[in-house]
């Protein structure tokens, strides 16, 4: 059976670095399989997150050969195996151990975004009438599996560490899913501008490129949100207009 070489990031906050492993590879194997095999056979205490092994839960995010990926959806036969495959934790978040990072910041940020507040139901049974075409756009955002790979590549977080002033692409997608929800009545534009830091995004589109759910983060979520912020705060005519116009 063929084997392949891996450099896996090991260690905790005290000290960490690459450790070399070699393991068997078989047809169709993904990076997560190799990590599991190494864990079971050579490094029982290797820390890694996973759940579904099918790209549905967003647990197994890591940087494979330097690219942010879901390990369970990255096939070894798509990687050059003539040199070692490097597997590292996401770099935009503090290391916990090995491939596991502390992503709790994302959960704190989300909690601060104003929750969904629907208009009163249309029907007596407590439901609403919504057409498929009215929700297509929001359904795209709701595909998000919270893998945080987009947060990992965004330079505002990764390089400039503006975690206190910028909520990151994942949470713009979340905000967009609420703002564009046909039933929602809340207004989050003030927060987007002031506390959520949407102005820091300079539309590099790196987030869109890595999203495993193929959500068009920049074009469909961030840019429309930026436009709404501009309309509301910088265009006096439109601002006036908005006051008299019911929310879309």
């Amino acid at each position: 059976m063929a084997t392949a070489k891996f450099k896996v990031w090991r260690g905790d906050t005290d000290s960490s670095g690459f450790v070399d492993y070699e393991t068997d590879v078989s047809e169709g194997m993904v990076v997560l399989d190799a990590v599991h095999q190494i864990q079971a056979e050579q490094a029982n205490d290797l820390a890694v997150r996973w759940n579904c092994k099918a790209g549905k839960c967003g647990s197994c995010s890591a940087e494979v050969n330097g690219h942010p990926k879901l390990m369970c959806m990255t096939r070894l036969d798509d990687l050059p195996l003539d040199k070692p495959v490097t597997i590292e934790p996401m770099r935009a978040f503090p290391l916990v151990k090995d491939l596991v990072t502390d992503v709790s910041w994302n959960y704190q940020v989300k909690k601060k975004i104003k929750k969904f507040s629907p208009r009163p139901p249309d029907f007596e049974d407590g439901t609403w009438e919504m057409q498929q075409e009215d929700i297509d756009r929001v359904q795209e955002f709701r595909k998000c599996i919270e893998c945080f790979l987009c947060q990992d590549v965004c330079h505002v977080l990764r390089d400039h560490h503006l975690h206190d002033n910028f909520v990151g692409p994942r949470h713009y997608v979340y905000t967009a899913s609420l703002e564009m929800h046909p039933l929602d009545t809340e207004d989050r534009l003030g927060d987007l501008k002031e506390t959520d830091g949407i102005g820091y995004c300079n539309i590099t589109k790196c987030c869109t490129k890595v999203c495993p759910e193929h959500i068009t983060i920049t074009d469909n979520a961030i840019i429309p949100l930026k436009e709404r912020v501009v309309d509301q705060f910088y265009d006096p005519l439109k601002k006036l207009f908005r006051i008299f116009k019911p929310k879309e």
Partner: protein
Amino acid sequence: MAQYETHEYDVLVIGAGGAGLRAAIEASSAGVSVGLVCKSLLGKAHTVMAEGGIAAALANVDERDGWKVHFADTMRGGQYLNNWRMAELHAKEAPERVRELEGWGALFDRTDDGRILQRNFGGHQFPRLAHVGDRTGLEMIRALQDHGIHQGVDVHMECTVVALTKDGDRVSGAFGYEREKGRFKMFPAKAIVLATGGIGRAYKITSNSWEYTGDGHALAYHAGAELIDMEFVQFHPTGMVWPPSVQGILVTEGVRGEGGILKNGEGRRFMFDDIPELYRLQTADNEEEGWRYTQGDREARRPPELLTRDHVARCIVREVQEGRGSPHGGVFLDIAWIREKLPNAAEHIRRKLPSMYHQFKELANIDITEEPMEVGPTTHYAMGGVRVDSDSQMTCVPGLFSAGECGAGLHGANRLGGNSLSDLLVFGKRAGEYAAQFAKENDSVLLDEDQVRSIADWALKPLENQAGGGGGNPYQVQYDLQEIMQKLVGIARSEEGISSALSEIVGLRQRSEGVAAIGNREYNSGWHTALDLYNLLTSAEAIALAALERKASIGAHSRDDYPDKEEPDTKKYNTVIRKGGDGEMLVSREEISEMRGDLQKIIEEIG
């Protein structure tokens, strides 16, 4: 003495899947303090993986549907071994629970008149499953999670409960470790809801994740609660079979709901060969009628591919065993064929089944709009589990509740697709409501330090085994158990096989006590796996023991040595597992109570 933090709540919910989240939301809205513990990050529980949909008789697509039909379908699917009161509550309350999700932000696919769209699924007479493409579970868990985080629930993520404590008869708390640093946490609580999911990791081929080690089952059992019907393990007919590394990953029943057909290695559509008597009148007898059914023709009957999962899985095994399988030991599931029927078939498939398209494209290099998939049975769901009161979800241990997959009763001998997500909502809510009520009506519990100390000592043993220099690899013990269960207590069972599995389990238990965890307490997967073995072995033993007890082939339980559905002169019964005075596992039978007259009448009328 090992150190631990203490977090006290009125109600502690263990598990943050659909059932646990719904229970926590309900308990907290009743005004009690609520803690929520889960092994993974929030939003990553199994519920996120559910694909096909939530069953609820909303009657948006076919107005002939209603709770009575849903009730009758659920009972028929479960071979009438279900707890009929739970089946009644479930059918009646599911629509309300689904509508409620919409008010929390969920966006289900729509009908032309702007209501929640419903799709066909195996064993459901009418289109009944509310869905979002094939990512319904994601929509459901996100709606619950995003609503739940604003309800004042205290969440402890990546924290695993390893034992419950008792105060006399009452449950008094839960003890666990957090993954990050391996620190211990003690959660004293007046009421505890177990919502830990299933047991799939006891088998080699499974659609379940590492989390499914039967923790809730084992916690309840050791605390004195009963487990019922553990022999009923659902093998989903369609898991991926190739390449080897993806073996077991689920292929949603939605593929068949959208018109997908099963063919053997010779290219023959074999599901028409064997249609069970109980379903003959409801099943199409020709391919054309089956197709019309999937396209919403209300006069047509369902194609045999949409018979219940136990039956479809057995037919697939038969084809493979008789040498008519696909190259990698499965059969073919073909959705691409609908090109013959629909002009824009490829686009239609990608829109209706986006994650299946993606999954096969990325993991198997197969374009499902062009080629058939190779599929075979995979361990999927535990119908059996913790025995609860049908209305309150409380076990026989005061203060201990259970809901979701780790609870039991609703599904009988076989669960219908879509009936789990609705189960989570209906009984998750009930468990939360009654747990809160219990907490309000009862005094605080007294914590027994000795109990806590002995749990902590036990939990540290694998790390000490390493220091002692001996001990085996915990992963190896887990693999060996999985091999044994797959081979001997899988789809086809016999007394000989099950008995030898039981004696193997004894040996594995001895090995599990000596396994060593290398490294320290920080996020140490080896240590976690070592501790999981305790629950996994308890659950496996319960499954095997119950499987030995039921000498018949009914629903998901098939005995080669007892092919008949009923045992002579035996009324319908549940198998019941409880812990004996000397710590040994006991199995017994309990007759199922007679169904209420009005429900009986529904069954007679609807069939």
